[in-house]
């Protein structure tokens, strides 16, 4: 087996009691922290932690599209950049966008577009920025979850929130919400995002191998986690808006 960045593969990723390397059960999410309105200058923002994964997302807009020729007559354009800080990973990530970041920006943008009412804002632009502060597995799913919260925080009309997590296969077991070591030393990693209100998938990728039957069960496991995350997202938004005075709303 391979070694990554000096962290050797643990002898077992699942112990005899069925517990994972961080003590979780296979279908257990990591401790989650969510907060909205964390930045002052953006129109909406959110901070999320899934265990050691820490991500911040911010939204600007709707605002004038630049350059102007990109503006569309019938809807807003949605820009999205997923980016990792240089110190978010074990070995310093070079500055600038890697191919991975360009791909993930695309899949995150395409997921957000499925629930955002872009046609409400013709000729405008909505810019979504996702910054990974620390990466411990599941950064794209945390980023997407945070981005949808930031859009809601910016008051942009949406058909639903997006909740996302990864499922994977580790030492032959299906597990929910992979951490970095499970992602790297496991057999498969499958990020999933859903719009729970529509019971639909808005992002889906699979890196690795799993049997077809496992794929079906993995999808169901992801949905379970997604429903838990969705509940937390709604709570954090409700809390924020119930704390605002009538003038602030």
């Amino acid at each position, binding site marked *: 087996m*391979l*070694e*990554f*960045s000096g962290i050797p593969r643990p002898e077992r990723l699942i112990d005899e009691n069925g517990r994972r390397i961080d003590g979780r059960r296979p279908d257990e999410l990591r401790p989650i922290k969510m907060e909205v309105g964390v930045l002052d200058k953006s129109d909406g923002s959110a901070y999320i932690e899934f265990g050691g994964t820490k991500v911040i997302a911010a939204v600007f807009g709707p605002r004038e599209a630049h350059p102007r020729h*990109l503006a*569309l007559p019938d809807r807003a*354009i*949605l*820009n*999205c*950049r997923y980016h990792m800080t240089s110190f978010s990973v074990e070995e310093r990530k070079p500055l600038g966008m890697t*191919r*991975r970041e*360009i*791909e993930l*920006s*695309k*899949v995150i*943008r*395409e*997921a957000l*577009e*499925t629930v955002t009412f872009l046609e409400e804002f013709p000729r405008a632009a909505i810019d979504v920025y996702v910054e990974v502060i620390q990466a411990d597995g599941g950064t794209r799913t945390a980023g997407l979850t945070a981005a949808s919260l930031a859009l809601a925080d910016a008051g942009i009309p949406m058909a639903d929130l997006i909740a996302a997590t990864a499922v994977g296969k580790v030492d032959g077991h299906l597990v929910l919400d992979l951490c970095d070591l499970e992602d790297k030393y496991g057999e*498969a990693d*499958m990020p999933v995002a*859903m*719009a729970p209100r*529509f*019971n*639909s*998938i*808005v*992002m*889906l*990728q*699979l*890196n*690795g*191998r*799993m*049997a*077809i039957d*496992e*794929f*079906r069960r993995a*999808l169901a496991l992801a*949905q379970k986690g997604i429903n838990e995350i969705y509940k937390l997202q709604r709570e954090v938004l409700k809390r924020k808006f119930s704390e605002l005075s009538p003038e602030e709303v």
Partner: protein
Amino acid sequence: MALTPKKDLTASIMRNKIYSLLLQDKRIDGRRPADLRPIKIETGLLTKADGSALVSMGSTKILTGIKVEVGAPFPDRPDEGTFTVNAELLPLASASFEPGPPDERGIELARVVDRSLRESGVVDLKKLCLVKGEKVYILFIDIYVLDYDGNYFDPSLISALAALATAKIPRYEIVDGKPQKTGEYFSPELSALPFTVMVGIIGERFLIDPQLEEEKALDVSLVMGTDEKGNMTCVQKNSPGQIPVGLMDRLVDVVAEKTNEIRRKFLQEIPVKLASVS
């Protein structure tokens, strides 16, 4: 930052037409929803490339070439050769492709093919080691979309595998610490044959291997792959839009069946004997 391209004005009209045909299990080009277009595979067309393949699926055409160099391995895998996959959507392939470095679509294509090859362990990288920790074979698998009539994913993976399976890699030996060609050639042994099938969804209906007119009108599309053992090897939702969760069960079965069909076709053209992994 790239943007999602705007929809063609005709897309919504086409969508309705394609959808009403799907309700009768028909498509605009006479195929049935789960029919692939004809696949043509030609290999060894080029002499300068160490491996090459021209693959067409309907009128979508993909050319893949492989060039091999000798270089240093990754420090964390000292006894393994390496490969990289690049893909370019050439401006001559479509009025919608522009010259310049690969945009997000090219990068996505390259990374989907890369993951399919890497995660299913197609190439036994240990067999591409010359001197542990110092010199290994480095394979550059470069994919060019020559003619884009929808679905560049599936034929790209076919062409990468065809080029790999038929490659003639110059064998090197180390003389005075420097790599030198021996004049002999070898072919990389393949240990798996993963293929993908692109699925397009309109409403609650689906079709596979969309041609361009269909692809432009889809609500959403995704690429799914399986290997010869029936494992899922690759999934990528590659467009905006929502996939109804309830559709996935059926899609997985169709994809497994259709990747088998591609595999049979591939093996007819290129009778590969799969090696066991070292």
